[in-house]
């Protein structure tokens, strides 16, 4: 009942403006870094491959994002390590 009243009075319903803002934020990160999502994905795959030579990582929990602060963009990767590879340590 209360929900019905507040809907009539137009209080809730996530505004389309916040949706616009959020979508813009995301698209501008890529625009400003001039990297396409496809390219970012390739970079991610390459990175995983290189790191896998040295350690075993949890690919499902891997976070890989371009982050934006004012007009600067940073590539932030959070890569959980499962274990170090023994054969690499042996080679050294």
């Amino acid at each position, binding site marked *: 009942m209360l929900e019905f009243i507040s809907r009539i*009075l137009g209080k809730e319903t996530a505004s389309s403006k*916040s949706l616009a*803002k959020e979508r813009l934020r995301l*698209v*501008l990160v890529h625009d*400003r870094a001039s990297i396409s999502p496809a390219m970012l994905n390739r970079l991610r795959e390459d990175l995983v491959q290189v790191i896998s030579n040295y350690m075993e990582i949890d690919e499902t929990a891997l976070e890989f994002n371009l982050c934006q602060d*004012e007009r600067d963009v940073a590539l932030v990767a959070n890569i959980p390590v499962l274990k170090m590879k023994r054969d690499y340590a042996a080679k050294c």
Partner: protein
Amino acid sequence: MVIAARVVEKNKELCGKVGQTMGEVIVVTSGKGGVGKTTTSANIGTGLAQAGFSVVLVDTDIGLRNLDVVMGLENRIVYDLVDVTSENCRLKQALIKDKRFANLHLLPAAQTKDKTAVSPEQMKALAEELKKEFDYAIIDCPAGIEQGFRNAIAGADRAVVVCTPEVSSVRDADRIIGLLEAADLKNPKLIINRIRPQMVKRGDMMDIDDILDILAIDLIGVVPEDESIVVSTNRGEPCVMDKNSKAGEAYRRITKRIQGEEVPLMNLDVPEGFMDKIKKLVGLR
């Protein structure tokens, strides 16, 4: 008008101190088409002329000229921008004097050529020439980021970016700001055009702060969506001259800010309706 004359004197004085009476070239740009570059150029130019400055409006949208019809001067065109840059005629011959203000001129774009008919170097030279003759040269930039854009910004001292509160327009404005800064046109100023206070209030349109937050540049004005723009364009008379037009008032304020005056933003609040009062009463706001 007395105040306007004094501002002009002051401006001349300032220029004199530097040892030259050079004007300023301002480019009006946006990236996306249809957001109001031409309307904005026409109104800023007319507003500055109204304030007593000598102004030239330059349409650089070669092949798709429109500033002439917005200004109501389409029947007076003999020569155009390309005639000037390719030295088919002298600058003075191509300049069209405005019907209303003797100190306002238009340099129309060519309609039958394309954007490669002019080079950025030629535009730079033209801008230098215009600066000697006028207090302000307002350059109306074509949509896009190709040669037309590079031509328009080539000789500019300052840039004004126009955007509407829509995702596509803000995105393109962001791209343009990046390109302007890369071309050494630092600190471009933003005009938010066609804002609808009613929709903003409802939460269905991005507000001024939302857009400034995303674009991170200085604001120079906000123009409300206004039917008088359509009427004034139909007539070929910029609405900055219309005392009753809301958009006209917004442009008058922008004109003052361009001259360096500090003017508060227009009050765009919508009057409180019956439902708003009830909402307040119930405590939902």
